[in-house]
């Protein structure tokens, strides 16, 4: 299973993702510089977290037009696995690979803490090792994680089982009280209709080793193998 980690100017979780794939999953992985127009052969491409292009204009809005994105959109449309984490999720929304848009957190604060998320579906390549309803303890670190979509899109997401993760209590209760950023319907992660593109705000690469306080992120990476 060959992984690629895209590096945009301002990416800052690229090394963390590379490390998890290389040292924890023990799979081949290489960086893909954002200026590359041909990406070669990969099985899964990770769009990492960070502040691509300084988050200027809107998060992900400029990265979406990086030269590499044309190949990534083609890769995704051809069924390749694309995993967008945090800023990577924002780029997937701006590029139209996933529906909706990201707003500033309702608190207007940058939030950096461990939260709980409920696995709403395990019928994706990213969550197939999770149990449906499984609660993961995982960190978030973002200023724009307030997922927004209109009612019709939300209905489509629900009808097509595309809501993959929702913010919840430690025992899996989904309610406003456990929504850190104001996201519609507590959404923390969604996939596309074909289920080969996943975007999520929490950071599985920051909780895939015992020393980091949680290994729940490993469920996602290991699902891909």
């Amino acid at each position, binding site marked *: 299973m060959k992984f690629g980690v895209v590096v945009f100017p301002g990416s800052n979780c690229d090394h963390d993702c590379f490390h998890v794939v290389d040292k924890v999953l023990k799979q081949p992985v290489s960086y893909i510089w954002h200026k590359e127009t041909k990406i070669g052969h990969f099985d899964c491409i990770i769009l990492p977290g960070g502040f691509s292009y300084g988050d200027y204009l809107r998060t992900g809005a*400029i990265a979406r*037009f990086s030269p590499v994105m044309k190949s990534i959109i083609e890769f995704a449309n051809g069924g390749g696995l694309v995993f967008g984490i945090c800023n990577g999720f924002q780029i997937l929304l701006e590029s139209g690979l996933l529906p909706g848009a990201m707003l500033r957190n*309702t608190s*207007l604060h940058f939030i950096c803490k461990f939260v709980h998320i409920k696995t709403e579906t395990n019928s994706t390549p990213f969550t197939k090792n999770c149990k449906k309803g499984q609660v993961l303890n995982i960190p978030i670190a973002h200023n724009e994680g307030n997922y*927004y979509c209109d009612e019709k899109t939300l209905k489509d997401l629900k009808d097509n089982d595309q809501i993959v993760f929702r913010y919840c209590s430690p025992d899996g209760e989904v309610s406003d009280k456990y929504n850190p950023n104001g996201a519609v319907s507590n959404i923390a992660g969604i996939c596309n209709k074909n289920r080969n593109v996943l975007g999520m705000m929490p950071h599985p690469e920051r909780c895939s080793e015992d020393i980091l306080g949680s290994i729940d992120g490993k469920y996602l990476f290991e699902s891909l193998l």
Partner: protein
Amino acid sequence: MNIVSVYISLKKTVADPQGQTVKHALESLDYKEVEEVRMGKYIQLKMKDATEEKVNDICKKLLVNPIIEEYRFEIK
């Protein structure tokens, strides 16, 4: 050469917590007559041969995310 002024704001249907916070600050300064504050962006383009069609293209392609934002512009 044209100067194009683009005004972008969140759609009415999208909550604007920045605007609400500013409104509360104005209330605390006793400006009770302010009913609503909406925040937005102002982008100025200096460009040749600006046409409405071209500026609309620029807005739709990059400057504005139509899912959450609306815009208007003036060409001078």
